[in-house]
């Protein structure tokens, strides 16, 4: 589900605006740092979460107006280059402000610990909360895109930018809003994930790669695809890590079986991506190119 939060923002930006944003991982990191900083300063985790949304949306809007706006008409390669530069700027900028040492983000009482699920399984409360948040965002986005005026404009902008500009919609402002929304989703995911992982410089990059895999598998520009893709990738990854060592040992692995299984397990999601692309080159829910 945290994958979905990340991928949803990415797919929104990529699918709707036709923009490759490598700095999405940096927005993820900024959200986590904003949350950790505000939570530490005020002592309220919820304020931190709100801050992560606001700060990353704000930074996203700034990026869109300052850098990205000049890139829509340009080649993908220029976009990759510029947003890669943004990663470096944000990583070292964050280090400059917060230092090299990881920050600490403590969960509130309410969300910490584990609950016993029906069936006797212990499950961490916070992971349940992330699932709930993820579901809420999925439904929210679906309503936003499918049911609101803003959603209609976004979809229209996706289909024909010039036409809706001619119809009097401020396309520049619309894109800023969409990008800020994508950024806010990334930042929110960063804050949630940062709460159970480490908040440190560079935390966004590994997740970014996974998010790209999710977007490619789900199909570019499809929120539903991002949701299904994230579930698929998450399940494949986790089940692979859990089941493969046993399988390899059973196949007569010997001493190297464990390390071998771990290596194969980390390849699984890419194999999954390859298989999906062979069967459906446009991704599971992608529009035909």
């Amino acid at each position, binding site marked *: 589900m945290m994958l979905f939060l990340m991928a949803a923002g990415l797919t929104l930006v990529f699918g709707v605006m036709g923009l490759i944003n490598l700095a999405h991982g940096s927005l993820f990191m900024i959200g986590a740092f904003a949350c950790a900083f505000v939570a530490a300063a005020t002592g309220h985790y919820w304020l931190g979460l709100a801050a992560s949304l606001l700060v990353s949306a704000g930074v996203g809007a700034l990026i869109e107006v300052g850098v990205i706006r000049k890139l829509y008409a340009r080649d993908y390669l220029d976009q990759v280059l510029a947003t890669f530069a943004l990663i470096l700027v944000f990583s070292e900028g964050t280090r400059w402000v917060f230092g090299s040492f990881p920050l*600490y983000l403590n969960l509130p009482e309410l969300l910490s610990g*584990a609950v016993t699920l029906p069936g006797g399984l212990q499950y961490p409360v916070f992971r349940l909360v992330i699932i709930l948040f993820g579901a809420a965002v999925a439904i929210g986005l679906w309503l936003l895109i499918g049911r609101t005026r803003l959603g209609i404009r976004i979809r229209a902008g996706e289909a024909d930018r010039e036409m809706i500009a001619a119809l009097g919609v401020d396309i520049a402002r619309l894109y800023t809003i969409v990008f800020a929304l994508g950024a806010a989703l990334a930042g929110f995911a960063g804050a949630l994930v940062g709460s159970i*992982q480490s908040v440190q410089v560079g935390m966004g990059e590994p997740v970014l790669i996974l998010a790209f895999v999710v977007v490619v598998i789900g199909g570019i520009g499809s929120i539903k695809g991002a949701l299904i893709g994230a579930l698929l990738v998450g399940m494949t990854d986790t089940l692979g890590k859990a089941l493969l060592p046993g399988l390899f040992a059973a196949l007569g692995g010997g001493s190297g079986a464990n390390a071998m299984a771990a290596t194969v397990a980390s390849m699984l999601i890419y194999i999954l991506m390859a298989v999906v692309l062979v069967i459906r080159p446009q991704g599971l829910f992608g529009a035909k190119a």
Partner: protein
Amino acid sequence: MKLSTFLKGGVMALAIGAAGMAQAEPVKVGVITTLSGGGASLGVDSRDGFMLALKQAGDAASDVEVVVEDDQQKPDVAVQIADKMIQSDKVDVLTGIVWSNLAMAVVPSAVAQGKFYLSTNAAPSQLAGAGCNPKYFAVSYQNDNLHEAAGAYASQEGIGKIFIMAPNYPAGKDSLTGFKRFYDGDVVKEVYTQLGATDYASEIAQIRDSDADAVFFFLPGGMGISFMKQYAESGVDKPLIGPAFSFSQDILPAMGEAAIGVKNTSDWSPDLDNEANKKFVEGFEAEYGRLPSLYAAQSYDTANLLLSAIAAADVSDADAFQQALAAADFDSVRGNFKFGPNQHPIQDFVIREVVDDNGVLTNKLVGTVMTDHADAYAAECKM
């Protein structure tokens, strides 16, 4: 700064020359360490520990010149920096690398070009056994040592069944091998995680399902932070044992309460009772406003070892300088310290416990696990 250092060096040389002794030109030291990216906290501590020792040495360090550069935790960058330091900065001694893969990229070629390398942390087994070199000193440990101590500790505690886990890369495999070398109980499950993984849901599920009495894990940096937080949330309560890397001072604050009570093995602890260590810990806190980590301690020792060798021999006389280093004539913050035949330390290993000391998480000494312990590769070294 540089000019004044030169001038001081010149005056010193004059004064000593007048006294009729053969005294050296300034010794140039190249510190290559990780100052950016995710692993930067280790490099920052390494650099700060090294510089603190030079600062405390005052005049004795006035003829030491230091160049510091950031390797970005990338082997190719480290090699470039090393080449530049050797060829254009003309350094005599290299030091500071945190990661084993970077050390393997830099050290063999640096010593082949006649430079000394003093390791403040990384000490891969390849350089301890057949690949040892008279110009290479591991001032820290041999990579397996802390894990061996953890294995010995688990045995001493009578832990019969254990679950062990490390990332799937060379140092991770060395870690589990080292642990098993001194553990005489039953390893119920051995798990290799993805290097850099941040989600440990499936590993924690496997720990829950196993009938192990305890868990040994080696997950340095952000991996350890992620695992500890998720483990604490999971409700699984099997005791954890780790090497000091998983609980060093640079990441403890980020782990928070989840880490309290966890046991870890180390060659150093902030509360080790000796004069050198008191001077180091107090000096570090006064200078940088935070507690030092294991990496800072080992770097501090490295700088003091270097100073002791400079006082005894001229760096241009390689044999004499090597012997001066090998004598290890300095006050180590670890107390008991000498070099073995492969120029890796013979030292004591302790067990520490993470405690909350007035709101600051730190490590407290519990006891000694191994005394005068060397490494498993010394016999293969022919020097």
